[in-house]
């Protein structure tokens, strides 16, 4: 059993990292978007490994579905010039790479030296039920706030995307 978990973990981790790198490194933005979907799917797989099935479903629906589609739309609407060189680096990429790498090393070293008080107990049984209870119980107010945020985001997005009067 542990072997299977480990096997899946490494497999999914490889997929996630490889596709994430592809998202960042590829020069064609359409390809980047496709690999982004793959990354999201890999992360969903990891959620399942972490016994968060509901979250995995949300991940697939929201990220791999909605957000990815949104991004592809945006790419389509803003496309200019050669698509094969649509996703290039800017002048700061070397500095950005160094900063990112150092940050990762620090984070890895820091976490690597931590010893966690891990407990392996039984889960709550039903993920969906537990989350529902959390949202309608202790997290009811943040839940509502999140709803308002979505509403505001939607209105804002519509307003911005529609453009000003002079554009019509």
């Amino acid at each position, binding site marked *: 059993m542990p072997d299977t978990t480990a096997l899946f973990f490494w497999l999914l981790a490889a997929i996630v990292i490889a596709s994430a790198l592809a998202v960042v490194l590829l020069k064609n933005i359409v390809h980047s978007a496709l690999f982004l979907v793959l990354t999201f799917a890999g992360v969903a797989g990891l959620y399942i490994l972490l016994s968060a099935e509901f979250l995995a479903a949300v991940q697939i629906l929201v990220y791999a579905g909605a957000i990815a589609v949104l991004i592809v739309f945006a790419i389509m609407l803003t496309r200019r010039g050669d698509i094969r060189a649509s996703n290039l680096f800017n002048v700061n990429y070397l500095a950005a790479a160094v900063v990112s790498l150092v940050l990762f090393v*620090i984070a890895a070293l820091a976490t690597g030296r931590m010893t966690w008080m891990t407990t392996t107990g039984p889960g709550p049984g039903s993920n969906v039920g537990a989350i529902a209870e959390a949202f309608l119980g202790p997290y009811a107010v943040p839940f509502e706030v999140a709803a308002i945020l979505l509403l505001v985001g939607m209105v804002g997005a519509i307003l911005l995307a529609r453009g000003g009067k002079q554009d019509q």
Partner: protein
Amino acid sequence: MTSYAWLIPVLPAIAFPIIVFITRKVRFLSALVAIAAIAASFVMAVGVLQEVFLLGITMEHPVEYAVPWLQIPGLLKIEAGILIDPLTAVMLLVVTLVALLVEIYSVGYMHGDPGFSSFFSYLSLFSASMLGLVLANNYFMIFFFWELVGLCSYLLIGFYYHKPEAARAGLKAFVTNRVADFGFMLGFFFLFAMFGTFNFRELAEAIPGYQNTAFLALAAALVFIGPIGKSAQFPLHVWLPDAMEGPTPVSALIHAATMVAAGVYLLARAFVLFASLPDVMLLVAYVGGFTALFSATIAVAQRDIKRILAYSTMSQLGYMVMAMGVGSMTAGMFHLMTHAFFKALLFLGAGSVIHALEEQDIFRMGGLYKDMKVTTTTFVIAALALAGLPPLAGFWSKDEILAATFDHGFTGLYILGTLVAFLTAFYMFRLIFVAFFGKRRAGLHGHESPLTMTVPLLILAVLSVVSGFVGTPFTEHGFSTFVYYGEPHHVEPNYAVMLISVLVALAGIGLAWLFYGRPSDVPERIANRYRSLYNLLVNKYYIDEIYLWLFRRVVLGLSEAFNWHDRHVVDGIFDGVGDMTRISGRKLRLLQTGNLQTYALVIFTAVVIIALWMAAPVFGGVVQ
């Protein structure tokens, strides 16, 4: 009368604002106000003199009126007060009389000048300052009026301010006097530091018992710098010849009654101080003697009528200072008085000539006696008085000085003084023979001056004759028993000295007649033979040039250095700071790209740096 003596300077002082603010537009009234004020002062001065004489007020027991002016208890006490003694009384009379005559004369001389009213206002202020100086009872007051006199001389010398030379001359007089005044000021501040008072009488009581003579000598020497400047003694004499740029009546006033007399008067007033210090007295005597000879030699070679007179004044002032220095204050003051009359006369006479001819070079005049009989007669009388021929005023006073010098054992100074007497006679009669006699020069026609000018000349001529009699042996040395410190001392009539002076004066006149009294090329030949000496004299020993050179070298050199320092070091530092700010601003501005990603990059770089810092072992971080 003495209790009203304070009005003497106040009257002309009031005339000044009246003329400036009220009668400025009405010339006639301006002159009237000024003359009325000084005339009233003159009348009062006569009254004061009479009272001093009748009451027997002496130098040791003067009458003093004072009100506190500035007081810091235990620290400082400055009075505004007047001091009346024979010295003051004589000076008041001389100053008011000469000023009165000069102002009357100016009505004619300045007639038609656009600055007529302001001229009279300045004259009033000038007289007021001088009278205040004479009456002052302490050093602080005297310095105050001393400075006012300096200011007025600046205004009057530069009266024709549109002429650059006049403006420069005024400035020169002012600046030169500033140098001297600084010494004077330091001197009496030293005295104050030593004795805690500015008052003359209190100082006169304190000084003889003072022990630290070295310090006292320093103070006295510093005080002496004041008269050196004001009375145009070497080496601060340079302003006086240039002061001839002013209107001629001003020259008369400056040379006779006010400005230059102030220095000698101060020496007399501070005589107690000097008398206690033989070394300083010696310095005073030699400065005076040297100046007398020095300027007499210059006068020999000058061509400008006013400049000859100016150097003559310096020379005579040298006599007075020398008299003070050899210890005969009486002789010095006597000469100051008689000199005031005949030198005023000489200047006013010269003014009359200039007024008629618009010319100052004596070698372009000639034969003036035909057209200007009064002027010529009075001028010759004054010149004879200056040359020291009996029985004119100058003879008695000059003889008093020479006799005193001889009696006090200064044989060298006596010989020097006699030589100066010879030179004086020579240059005065050179001037007279060339300008008033001889051939008429073409194109110059003199005419006699109006009555307002000739009447003062006549009055002064009479005074030049008779004013000496107050101090002759026949009149029992009246002056000597009036103005003196300690015991009345007068020199026993030394007939040998008298005879020598007369002979010397006659010799000078005779030589002048030989050279200039008839057509002759002797002067020219001598000038050519001794070209370098002649040039030296014509150029006044190059003193001005030496000063100029010194100033160029020292002052301008220093200024250059400071200028360089200011420009390159001080400015450099501040410019550097400014440039640094500007340049660093220009460079730093590039950080502000306005690009979101760059900002984000910077933020995360900072995060990394902070993380590294916190993780570093030295700070007890995670990474051990």
